[in-house]
């Protein structure tokens, strides 16, 4: 039901913008919403750094709100950013914000653009002023896997994950495939902690894996800090995630998969400034990118990485850059023996089937 208040609010907002704030009307105001604290050394911090990066453009103003849970609170925050701060573009960065929250608020404010991180925009089903973006960080995780495969002496790798959802499974599989591309006998043992941020469980998981003989760890949780530090303390190697954690594990850090959100946000900001919009179809609804597009990057190699490892990793990176690398190609079996892809077939990175992943590839110990 269209609200009779929206034209009134729109008018008030405009007046407030012009009179109250008295600033250049062509500043693009972008709102960023995070589900956890901004300084979590992980997921949310990566986005916040992206926001800081885009604000380097003088004609962009960023408004941030952190620790907004995935309930009506985020709807309230979005509306506040639109009505009180005058945001024209919103970036709610947690997956759970999409349905129903963004969809509901987007219908109420057709002139504001909503870019959701990680969502799967479906034309016809979702409002026209909504778009989704994400990075193929599994490419960077694949490179981590390559380095890990070289560095392990026991052949056992460990992966501490939050939940068995497609984005996480994709990373686990990429890590395993990367490692096994240089070390076919390597195995990856997975432990799911159940939630995005559980430091005690993550530390316990790290300890249990190390007790089982794992000598390279990596993870997909909101904040890798505890895992990096535990690994370093027990003297094993570790690959980072979300952000560069080499300071936390100076000896054991091999490399890491990092986001480069500033590039994504800067691209969007430029498009908005140029007057493009989702509703008009001039901004694509589904934006994805990997190493080649600069959406994600790999951390620098740590001191323990051998030259062989670097060589293989660099050649894999080069293949990503020129578009010839395919991570998920047949013959591919899952860890129960069932065939996922026959020989000759492959999933290109943009293939939407990958975003529905529910299997673990052969070589991964664990179940979804």
């Amino acid at each position, binding site marked *: *039901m269209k*609200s*009779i*208040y929206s034209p009134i*609010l729109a008018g008030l907002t405009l007046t407030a913008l012009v009179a109250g704030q008295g600033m250049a009307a062509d500043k693009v105001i972008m709102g960023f919403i995070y589900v956890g*604290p*901004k300084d979590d050394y992980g997921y949310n911090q990566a986005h916040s750094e992206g926001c800081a990066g885009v604000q380097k453009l003088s004609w962009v103003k960023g*408004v*941030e*709100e*952190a*620790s*907004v*849970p*995935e*309930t*009506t*609170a985020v*709807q*309230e*925050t979005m*509306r*506040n*950013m639109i*009505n*009180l*701060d005058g945001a024209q573009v919103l970036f709610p960065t947690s*997956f*759970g914000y999409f*349905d*129903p929250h963004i969809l509901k608020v987007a219908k109420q404010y057709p002139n504001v653009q909503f870019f959701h991180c*990680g969502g799967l925009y479906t034309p016809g089903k979702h409002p026209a002023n909504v778009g989704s973006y994400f990075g193929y960080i599994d490419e960077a995780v694949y490179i981590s896997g390559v380095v890990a495969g070289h560095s392990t002496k026991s052949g056992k790798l460990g992966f501490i994950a939050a*939940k*068995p*959802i*497609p*984005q996480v499974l994709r990373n686990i599989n990429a890590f395993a495939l990367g490692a096994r591309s240089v070390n076919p006998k390597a195995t990856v043992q997975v432990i799911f902690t*159940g*939630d995005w941020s559980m430091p005690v469980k993550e530390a316990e998981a790290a300890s249990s894996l190390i007790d089982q003989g794992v000598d390279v760890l990596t993870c997909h949780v909101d904040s890798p800090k505890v895992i990096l530090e535990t690994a370093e303390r027990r003297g094993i190697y570790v690959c980072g995630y979300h952000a560069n954690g080499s300071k936390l594990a100076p000896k054991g850090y091999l490399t890491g998969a990092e986001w480069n959100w500033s590039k994504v946000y800067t691209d969007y900001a430029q498009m908005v400034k140029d007057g493009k919009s989702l509703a008009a179809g001039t901004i694509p609804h589904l934006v994805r990118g990997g190493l080649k597009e600069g959406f994600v990057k790999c951390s620098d190699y740590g001191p323990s990485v051998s030259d062989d490892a670097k060589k293989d990793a660099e050649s894999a990176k080069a293949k990503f850059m020129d578009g010839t690398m395919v991570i998920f190609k047949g013959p591919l079996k899952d860890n129960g023996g069932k065939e996922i892809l026959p020989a000759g077939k492959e999933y290109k990175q943009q293939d939407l089937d990958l*975003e*529905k992943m*529910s299997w673990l590839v052969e070589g991964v110990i664990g179940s979804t």
Partner: protein
Amino acid sequence: MPTAPDANTVSVAAATATATAPRPAWRWRTSLEGVAIPVGAVVGGCVLFGIFCFFQSRNPFAVFAAIYKAAFGSWYSFQNTLVRAAPLMLTALCTALPGRWGLVVIGNEGGRVGGGVAATAAGLAVQSASLWFVILCMLLGGMVGGGLWITLVGLLYYKRGVNETISSLLMNYIAIAVLNHLVNGVMRDPSSLNKPSSYPIPDEKMMPTMGNSNVHYGLVFGIVACLLAWVLMEHTTFGFKVRMIGGNIRAARMAGLPVATLGLITCFLGGAAAGTAGMVEVAAVHGRANESLAAGYGYAGILVAFVARHRGLPIILVATFLGGILASGGILQREFQLPDATILLFQGLVFLSILFSDSLYGRFKFFKERGA
């Protein structure tokens, strides 16, 4: 564990005495005290927060102006406050109702989750029926789910002497674990990939918002529940009996009251209220059960109950007030670059202040009644 007799309930003898004595003149001093002290406490808490802001180099007056603007300053803001207050009203009843009986239950989160899951199951079962039937079934499901969860707490207390505060606390954690287990397992909708959830309730069968506002009917449920609780406790025989037990359990037993049954009923009612909060969360907001059901209101509902002295009408006010504080969290972050924890600090200061003020009743000569 024996609990504190509620200072405001009457014992058997006193009740009889006041029933037969001549009615005194309106004790305006006492009434004034009942308003001045809580208001003074809120102001005191705000002053403390203002001093904190000052030491953090933020202008306290600007901060308070912003909080007011975001909580009560416009109809738009007030809607946000109301949306936040609705679940608080319902979860507060989960502590308030057993509280009048004499149990200290802090299982609001568990009751909410239990009710939410049950409501989802009920809604999915009848999803092809009309909107009102679906809502009704979900409501019943929520009430039964939440009610049974807290009745279990009461049963454990009654049958095995297990301290109800601890058992309700543990049941919170267990409820969340069961929710996650179900939502990731048996109840999971395979197409809910990146956020495991149950199957969704169809959009057209969800609870609508009221008129043109952003406020859904959950608010009505909350206010009605509080009013019913108030009527139940203050104006019915059932309520009188429960209050008697809360005042002096031995005397009540001697008077032949079915103490255990009444206790279990109040637990069920309290749990039903919390379960309704869960049902509202599913029916009006998410449309399905998933982990967001437990992304809760923490212990705020418990505090609301205590500050409102476990009574229905004050709960409505206190919940609205707390809803306002919570609704202003965002503006503190965006306008003053204060971290998200600031609103926790503000809440803590205000509630500490209000609790402290409880001890000030009867201390000021001004409020003492003149004469007898």
